[in-house]
């Protein structure tokens, strides 16, 4: 808590504590959430649902974010050690981010995990998603590299 922003009593209550309406707002939203959860639980598979709800948050906060941060640090520092210009890091970072993001969103199709339901739905086997993802990945890395080269030429 900041001690430098002590001013009027109203200001104080804002920084030190919280306005009292906030607790009421939380309680109201919890009540609505409890109702919504009860409607979901009425359908059964409560453990499975909770595993997904809590699992999504844990997987993001304790796995995905630490992993991409660690990868970023590892590659970023090795690129920096290789003596490349600081800005070059971002020309690897951004295409890697886009490629990773597409994998994160489309992994069931790219890795063929939903082949059976996909075939039942469409009448065809999902065959070209991996190829397309690889092609997009190659394209964004080349585009980013091209922009870097252009920047260097213009910078001279």
């Amino acid at each position, binding site marked *: 808590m900041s001690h430098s922003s002590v001013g009027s009593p109203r200001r104080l209550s804002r920084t030190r504590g919280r306005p009292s309406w906030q607790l009421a*707002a939380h309680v109201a939203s919890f009540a609505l959430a409890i109702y919504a959860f009860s409607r979901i639980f009425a359908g059964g598979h409560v453990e499975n649902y909770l595993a997904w*709800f809590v699992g999504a948050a844990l997987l*993001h906060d304790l796995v995905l974010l630490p992993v991409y941060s660690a990868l970023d640090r590892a590659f970023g520092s090795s690129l920096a050690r290789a003596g490349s210009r600081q800005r070059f890091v971002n020309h690897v970072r951004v295409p890697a981010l*886009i490629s990773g993001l597409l994998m994160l969103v489309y992994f069931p199709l790219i890795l063929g995990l939903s082949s059976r339901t996909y075939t039942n739905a469409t009448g065809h086997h999902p065959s070209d998603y991996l190829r397309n993802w690889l092609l997009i990945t190659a394209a964004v890395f080349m585009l980013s590299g091209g922009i870097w080269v252009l920047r260097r030429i213009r910078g001279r």
Partner: protein
Amino acid sequence: MRIPETPPPGPFRPGFWRSPLRGPWLASFLGVLLLPLLTVVALTGWISHNAYRPDLGHNLPYASGGDFLPLVHLPEGSPSWIYALTQGLHVNVGLVAIPLVLAKLWSVIPRLFTWPPARSTVTAAERLSSLLLVGSILFELATGVLNIEVYYAWHFNFVRAHYYGAWVFVASLAVHVAIKLSTVRSAFRTRGALRPLRDGLADTEPEPYEDGGLVSPRPAEPTMSRRALVAAAAGGSLALLLVNVGESVGGPLRRFALLAPRGRVYGTGPNAFPINRTAEASGVSVLAADPGWRLQVTGARTVIVSRGGLLEMAQHTESLPIACVEGWSTTQSWTGVRLADLARLCGVNGPATLTVSSFQVHGPFRQATFGADQVADPRSLLALRVGGVDISLDHGYPARVVVPGAPGVHCTKWVGTMIFTELA
């Protein structure tokens, strides 16, 4: 047991987080970007829920408790493409939001490791509220994304969980916005809403440090500007939009939807447009091809009609989309008999609802109920032909329903019986 005042080593110590970009401005800016997007996703989701007409028959694949909010629904007589538009927005804007949600969570991750975990009832409520907010947005995005890719990796009912999950999200988001409004205002007032985006890498500096805030007490050298960070997230959004949106727009754009679940067109001819569940997977191949097929139409009386009999009735051609809840759509020129004419055929002249059943034996959407306005709509057809040829087995031969503004799964294929119920 008392919680020690000193945080345990690791992420609970403020100095663990070193990015010079984190701070109230960045978190506020990402939040302000996300709010309109998530509002669109929530509203179109509600519209979709009500487009199923959960008040009629068994239109939802679970027992609806009569608690749907009819607040947001499509007005009667809307353009036929309205559901293709709203659901296309729901899915594509949802995808666009993903990189921004991830960036936003990155920008506030030190908050997860606040120490001590809670100082008072209010802060405990805040932590719980954050769990609901983060858990519900990630749950909604994850289940939505996996559902459009027909990857059903769960046991719970998707429609139920995704719909009520949205209630949890909207409730916790509303409180979050109300509480953080002053933070956003003060961040924008002191730093300017857009000014930090003007700074290149050389001018990128940490926001002023505040005890217990988001700014790192020992920030590292920046390796990218805030502008670059926002641009990278927006680039991710653009990439997701580009690889997907073609399946919603359709036409020549479809084949540029490189990763979209329905970005493929197989075969040639008028029947070469995306299908949802093949005749084979639905177990109707034999029955659908049987020339002995008859349609049973029930109202004031029951009438049995052959396909030839239907073709002898007045034929109408309408350009209507099949718009799937998964966000893809395809607009085709359908020819067939008006639902209103079929109502009259069985002696129903006043307003009536209609329950259409497929002769498909299994499947949650083998039946759909339409409201009186949909039955009376002259564009609503029992389609026999598409693009000038007979509809194919996979598209619902011998006959399928096509109703403007109805979700694709309600445009029942392989129709066996139609029951008109006159409104009292």
